């Protein structure tokens, strides 16, 4: 479990990006941070792997305060997919994916082996392993980013708008595969997006962030759609019209998948697919 207790982040210029955040993210679940631009989603995410240090408050993973561990070591144990990939342009796909295993001291052969076996799992042709990032399409680059984050099999995965740079059709495919992968891996995933459809589709739980860096509502997609807080959250979900649309597509999504990937193992999960008949 990842917990935030009274976490505040004030940047050097005085911007309060996150304000007194209390939040608990369940192990083995996908928690989605959603909200308008600039409301502190990325900041919150990056405090988990110490890419940003909180001004006050405590972030703990399984009860261990993250600041008690050396940052580099902590990060090697947490998968991180940054927006737009951030792939290393001078390294092949395979070597990109092998980054963290190599940092952890695996020998080169084993690390490459691991990278090679990961490519098909994120939907990439093995032949792409020898390519360089600029020789890939946007969608392929995103997949490499995901494979790279998974390479050392970290229990926790942080994903910052991993599918935002691709067109809707490719995005739908990536989301589909992402859910399938998660059904096998049961990672604790924190997923940032500003697309509410994506949030409803992927999340076991959704934290709706509001301007000023606080969470306006934290609920399962079902609860969120059934009873959004009046005001900001309802507005963000697109008002009554938007909600009707979201509910409709949520039902559509839920129906064919009797058991939503991962939800069975996730204690306390109330994912959409768990009760398709409801």
């Amino acid at each position, binding site marked *: 479990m990842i917990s935030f207790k009274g976490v505040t982040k004030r940047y050097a210029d005085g911007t309060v990006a996150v304000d007194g955040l209390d939040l608990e993210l369940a192990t083995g679940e996908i928690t989605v941070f959603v909200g308008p631009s600039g409301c502190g989603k990325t900041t919150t995410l990056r405090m988990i*792997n110490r*890419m940003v240090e909180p001004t006050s408050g405590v972030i703990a993973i399984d009860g261990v305060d993250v600041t008690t561990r050396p940052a*580099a*070591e*902590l*990060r*090697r*144990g947490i998968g*991180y997919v*940054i*927006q*737009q*990939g*951030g*792939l*290393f*342009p*001078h*390294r*092949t796909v395979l070597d990109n994916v092998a*980054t*963290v295993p190599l*940092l952890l001291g695996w020998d080169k052969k084993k690390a490459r082996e691991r990278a090679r076996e990961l490519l098909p799992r994120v939907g990439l042709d093995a032949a792409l392993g020898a390519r*360089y*990032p*600029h*020789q890939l399409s946007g969608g392929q680059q995103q997949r490499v980013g995901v494979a*790279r984050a998974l390479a050392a099999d970290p229990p926790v995965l942080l994903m910052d708008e991993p599918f935002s740079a691709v067109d809707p059709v490719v995005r739908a495919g990536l989301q589909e595969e992402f859910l399938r992968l998660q059904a096998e891996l049961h990672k604790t995933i924190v997923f940032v997006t500003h697309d509410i459809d994506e949030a409803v589709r992927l999340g076991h739980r959704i934290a709706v962030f509001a301007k000023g860096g606080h969470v306006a509502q934290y609920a399962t997609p079902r609860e969120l759609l059934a009873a959004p807080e009046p005001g900001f959250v309802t507005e963000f979900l697109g008002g009554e019209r938007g909600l009707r649309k979201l509910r409709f597509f949520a039902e559509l999504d839920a129906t064919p998948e009797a058991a939503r990937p991962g939800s069975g193992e996730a204690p306390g999960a109330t994912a959409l697919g768990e009760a398709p008949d409801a």
Partner: protein
Amino acid sequence: MNAGWEWITDPANWHGSDGIPVRLAEHVGYTLLVLLVALAIGLPLGLFIAHAGQRAAFAVINTANGARALPTLGLLVLIFLLSTGSDVAALIPLVILAIPPILVNAYEGIRQVEPQVRDAARGMGMTGRQVLFRVELPIAVPLILLGARTAAVQVVATATVAAYINLGGLGGYIMDGILLREYGEAVGGSVLVVLLAVSVQGLFTLFTHLVTPRGLRKEHA
């Protein structure tokens, strides 16, 4: 021009302590020494200021660029006089000339690494040192070598001034030629300097091509 060519092709000029091979070797030697010292100073400094604050970086770069405007010959004579005639001291102006392109390009090479790439490197758990050696430097290699190439060509051309204080090199031919009105020798010496500069340029280009990581080679784009 013809006189110059005759002079170069005259076998007599290819022998002895004053012959072309010896002078060429001296010239190349000075150039290498100057380049190594300039790299040893300019490269770490460039890498350092690329990670320091904007202000420090601008201060250093402006100073370095300002140093480019110093009259090399004047500086040479001054340092020679101050240093009671040591050979090595005579190379200081050349080093000062060679540092700016190396320093500025190292700085630019690191600065042009995309912020997301650097961020991803840190996010994967690389230490600062690992980010530098595994990500930033390899990506900066083409620009760093371009800086070294510019510096090398400049030093080859400017090392001719070493002759003014009797340090030999190809510049000696040019100076002697002018003083003794042996224009063939002066032109021949100049041609050799140009040929050397062109070769250095070619070698650097080849070397750059060989060591540039394949993923960064533009023709693949």
